[in-house]
């Protein structure tokens, strides 16, 4: 039955994430972007929300994808980069908890119960052909295990990840392999800085014949893992879009030009209306895809289309945010230019960064 009502549990998690975003994530976002790293304390406080712990739980929660989307949307409202930092661990934990063997869950998920943050990523996108590293990631049989060759692009917090879920083409189609970051012949390239989301220190990972045992092969296809990553990305874009809209709304009422607030001119007011329309639509198409993934074997179409809509519209909203602030939109004293860079970055990250 069609319903737009969140459960009580989802509402509670939403409220906690919202509070954290407003009190801690948003105030720290600019400094983290400038420094190109998150303060340790902020990562720890984000971890304290308990999202990854619960994602790693063997006991299945009700609607885990909806819960994640709701929480990530709120955190992204504070800082999209911080939301992505968490999303990597969440994606890894959900994939292993829901699809992994018992041995894999024991081996890789115990760490998620600790009080110290655990970093992990789902690395699905091969490094870009245009960017020098271009090579398809392939895995072939080697003795009792597998040998992986290739490169993955712009993994968030790559240097801090202990574990990665790496996708690779095999003779049986695309499969996922759990790879320890310390593995021999796995090389993390230096982070060179990126347009936006700078605190994530995104870096390429090169797999130069990395060998893994057979029991690190994740059972099942990668469909759900990819759908989940797109749903998480949609949630982050939705939170970012709403942040821009809500920040811009009071400004256009205050900013006086030619004797009246710019918000009283249709050319400006209609932009705000469009931002509101699209931010709401991103949120609900994302939650719709999440609800579908939670009750169906896959949600390939809705997840991909939600992410596509979110990418296009969040960029447009962030772009208009800069425009409506004029010069203030361009200077780094205000968050608009950062949000614009972040929106541009996130909207090309489909399947790329293990979000």
């Amino acid at each position, binding site marked *: 039955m069609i319903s737009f009502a969140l459960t009580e549990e989802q509402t509670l998690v939403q409220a906690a994430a919202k509070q954290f975003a407003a009190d801690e994530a948003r105030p720290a976002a600019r400094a983290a972007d400038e420094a190109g790293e998150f303060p340790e304390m902020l990562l720890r406080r984000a971890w304290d929300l308990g999202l990854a712990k619960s994602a790693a739980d063997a006991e299945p929660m009700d609607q885990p994808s909806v819960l994640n989307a709701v929480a990530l949307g709120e955190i992204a409202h504070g800082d999209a980069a911080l939301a992505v930092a968490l999303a990597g661990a969440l994606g890894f934990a959900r994939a292993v908890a829901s699809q992994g063997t018992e041995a894999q869950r024991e081996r890789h998920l115990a760490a998620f119960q600790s009080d110290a943050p655990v970093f992990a990523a789902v690395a699905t996108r091969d490094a870009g052909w245009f960017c020098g590293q271009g090579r398809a990631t392939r895995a072939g049989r080697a003795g009792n295990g597998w040998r992986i060759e290739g490169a993955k692009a712009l993994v968030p917090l790559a240097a801090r990840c202990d574990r990665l879920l790496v996708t690779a083409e095999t003779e049986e189609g695309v499969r996922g392999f759990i790879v320890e970051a310390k593995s021999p012949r796995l090389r993390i390239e230096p982070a060179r800085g990126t347009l936006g989301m700078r605190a994530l220190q995104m870096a390429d990972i090169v797999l130069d014949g990395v060998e893994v045992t057979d029991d690190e092969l994740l059972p099942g296809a990668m469909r759900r893992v990819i759908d989940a990553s797109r749903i998480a990305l949609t949630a982050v874009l939705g939170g970012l879009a709403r942040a821009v809209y809500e920040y811009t709304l009071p400004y256009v009422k205050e900013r006086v030009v030619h004797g009246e607030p710019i918000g009283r001119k*249709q050319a400006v007011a209609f932009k705000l209306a469009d931002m509101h329309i699209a931010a709401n639509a991103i949120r609900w198409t994302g939650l719709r895809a999440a609800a579908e993934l939670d009750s169906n074997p896959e949600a*390939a179409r809705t997840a991909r*289309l939600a992410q596509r809509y979110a990418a296009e519209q969040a960029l447009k909203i962030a772009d208009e945010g800069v425009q409506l602030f004029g010069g203030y939109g361009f200077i780094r004293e205000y968050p608009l230019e950062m949000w614009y860079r972040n929106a541009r970055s996130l909207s090309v990250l489909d399947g790329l960064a293990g979000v």
Partner: protein
Amino acid sequence: MVSFALTRADRAILKEAKAQADLASRHAREFEHDEDRMLPHAFPEAEGRPDTRAMLAHLEPETSGAKILTALLYLEDWRGGVPLREARYSLGNTALRIAGAPEQYERWRNRTIAIGLTESVGGSDPASTRTTATWDAAAGEWVIEGEKIFITYAESCDAVLVLARLVHPERRGLSAFMVEKGTPGLSVGRQFRKMGIRFEDTAPLAFSACRVPAFNHIDGDLKSMLRSFSESRPVVAAYALGVTRAALDFTWGRLAEIGIAPDYDQGPTETTAAADRLMSLEAEWEATWTVVLQAKWIEQNEGPGKIDSSMAKAMGGGLARRVTQTCIDVLGVCGLSDAYPIEKAFRDARIFDIYEGTGEVQRLIIAREILGYSPKELN
């Protein structure tokens, strides 16, 4: 719990509606050169098939709700290009239900009621209404004078709910009146010659010394009458979803003949420009579908939201324009031919960003609410 899963009863009703839309589609072009012809209450193919709206009334407790399902039924009607069975329900019915007294609603509830709002000087601005209703105290009647244009159901309706300016010793302002067909002084003009939706009955109405009894005065406030738009606007967006669904399906079907199919995992460098553009529209279609259902879900649970209907309508109107324009781009010359349904979809779909409030009117409503401006402060 957030859910987008249709119930078994939802699916049964919608499956029948889809089958009926397919049957109706063979009649979709019959009105293109015969605009004076009225839509039949039902096409012959309806014989022996259940009335989906009656199915809904019967199964309502097992469905996602009458309002959500009604929007989805209209979506299916418009997918076929013309309804197999006429709904016999118009905006005037909703307005009467909301603004009329119980005895007034009882009297006309089973009639098709058009709404007479728009005049030649404008439809978006009811304050510009020139039609008058003058109180004749001696007769105890209202005398209506004026002209309305672009009235949907003008010819086929049983009655019209007309908006007029009061001329009364103690009262002023705008109010609504029920005028039944056959009332002396009410005349229906010639059908408008339109770019599209030619099967829809659209004509002007003239009121000349048209007398109605005091009982016919719908004395609810104007605001409550205009609130009927909050219920109908997401339905217009559902019409847009129907026309654009058919257009997208047709376009993908032609592309499949040359080996182009949607692939949800391809990036922009791995696909054709045609597929990439359609995929962007598919994304917008799904977003609009979600927001139309959101508006209807809110309406079912709390009554129509202040701006949710306008959000759905604005999205539907824009979607209709973008999808039909782009499908012709992708199809090229075959999109122009009367032999295919796309040129008709292009002409039909353009109305959705105009009637029942233009896209600009929806944005005004939304902007005033989110910015906290009165109509005076933002106009």
